[in-house]
């Protein structure tokens, strides 16, 4: 397997009973790339991500993440990926720093590492003043930054973000994307799903999913010129209308 490939998926499918949620998708993501997954509700984005980070078993097909087979090396997958789920899922009744401490401990960091990381993350995310607040009292945008930071605690090379900016105001979304760029500049691979078309433009490469299938893949510029549109929004609408 080539060294600069972070995620390699071939003919990956997932069925729920007779329903096909993900239908033989294939693609590759390069190291350090910000790879976007675009698709309407129910297109199968979350299902695909869950298979890639070891939460769901695929029905058929193959996939490698950070060089590990998702079917047979799930414990390595878990060590080398970060996952931020679509639904905010940190402990609302723990304090901000308690959440960081907890996930640090779960990822097997030492006390000292946890302390250092906590300090670093709190300052990077501008959460120092909130560290002793209960997590449920944070505004949504901050919660999501916290969720991202806990997903990064163990320094994973590949990070899956499932609609990280859902329900967040435009300013917070912009800030969030600044952080994503910063992380990508550190050489980490970011795999992100989104509903927001403006965010799609921030991605280095995009795949558009529809009813479980990937119907288009390429850089935003390529896609726009291919369909002769001025924005990804228009490309997306054009593709959706064909159906």
């Amino acid at each position, binding site marked *: 397997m080539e060294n600069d490939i972070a995620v390699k998926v071939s003919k990956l499918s997932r069925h729920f009973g007779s329903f096909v949620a993900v239908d033989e998708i294939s693609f590759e993501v390069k190291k350090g790339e910000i790879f976007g997954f675009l698709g309407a509700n129910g297109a199968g984005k979350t299902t695909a991500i869950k298979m890639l*980070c*070891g*939460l769901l078993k695929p029905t058929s097909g193959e996939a490698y993440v950070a060089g590990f087979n998702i079917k047979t090396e799930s*414990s390595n997958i*878990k*060590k080398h*990926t970060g*996952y931020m*789920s679509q*639904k*905010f*899922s*940190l*402990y*609302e*009744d*723990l304090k901000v720093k*308690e959440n960081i*401490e*907890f*996930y640090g*401990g*779960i*990822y*097997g960091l030492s006390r000292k590492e946890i302390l250092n990381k906590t300090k670093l993350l709190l300052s990077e995310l501008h959460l120092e003043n909130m560290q002793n607040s*209960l997590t449920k009292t944070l505004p949504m945008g901050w919660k999501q930054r916290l969720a991202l930071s806990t997903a990064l605690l163990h320094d994973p090379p590949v990070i899956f973000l499932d609609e990280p900016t859902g329900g967040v105001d435009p300013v917070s979304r912009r800030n969030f994307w600044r952080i994503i760029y910063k992380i990508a500049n550190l050489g980490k691979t970011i795999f992100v799903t989104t509903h927001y078309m403006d965010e799609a433009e921030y991605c280095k490469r995009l795949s558009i999913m529809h009813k479980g299938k990937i119907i288009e893949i390429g850089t935003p510029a390529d896609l726009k010129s291919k369909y002769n549109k001025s924005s990804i929004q228009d490309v997306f609408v054009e593709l959706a209308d064909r159906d």
Partner: protein
Amino acid sequence: MRQILYLVQKEFRQIFRDKAMLRIIFIVPLIQILVLGNAITTDVKNIKIVIQDQDKTPYSRELILQFVHCKYFKTIGFEDNYTNLSDCLASGKANLAIVIPKHFQRHIVLNKKPDVQILVDGVDGNYAGVALGYATDILQKYQERLISSTPYLGFYAKNIHRVEKAPMFWYNPNLESKPYIVPGLIAILLLIITMFLTSMGIVREKEIGTLEQLMVTPIRSYQLVLGKVIPFSILGIVVINIAMGFIYLIFGIAVKGSLLFMVFESLIFIISTLGLGIFISTISETQQQALFMAWFTMICFILLSGFFFPIANMPYVIQKITLLNPLRYFIIILREIYLKGTSIKDLIPETLSLVAFGACLFIAAIIRFRKKIG
């Protein structure tokens, strides 16, 4: 190992931050002990009696006095009409009716057989039996007095060799039901805290999505389970010790046996209940479902445990089914330790049964948990 400690720490932080939960955990047991300890009583006291004296002679009156002065009976009235008498029983105004027929005195004096009729409301069979026992006791004593004071009975007849019974009930001399009920209450408390809180705690994490977040970490499912189970075990043991304190303060009933041994047996018992809790969490998607399942399990366990109804009174098949109930063994063990101070060597079969159930239930639960979630 460190991962488990972090899980335990997290769980305790959550428990102590949730004031409503704390209230449930610490105040509900107190209320349960107060209410159930006083309400569930199988003591038969204040048996309401109604008397019909058709004879109205010194002898019949003397017999009536025995009933009136007996502390177990409460005479609610005298009734000359037989229909009214049976109405008293039917309406529940009286539990027991005594009918002294005409010629009662005459039969005694003439050395014939005097009769007394006793009617008992038999709806609650247990109660009726005990009430009838007290009544026959009074009649027997009365008869003995008659014999010894009858002038024309010969010396031999008076001193005839009668076997007198003077029963002594050990361990619970007054046959009170509280000492009998209380150990059962502790067992149920432990069942509730460990089974309910474990199942609901896991399902709650499923609902809010934190379980999924944990599943993407390298944590193993056994660590996850232990991280859930250890805090609730500690909590359970602490709560029953507090409960025993309450029981001593309120009812004056203290543990006869070793407290350490009791904690040891409790730990063995909760392996089963924790296993059930985990199992319930694997078949429930919502906390309501988990609550319902836990509730259902608890009711079955209690009814088949001998807590309310003696197992010996159950139909044969049901008696056999109770052998599959860990709570049954634990209540036996607790009663033995609480009331008699029995030591481990007399409780080996029960303890081994608990170990066996615990091992099976817990292992099955973990396997299912790994399949469903891992």
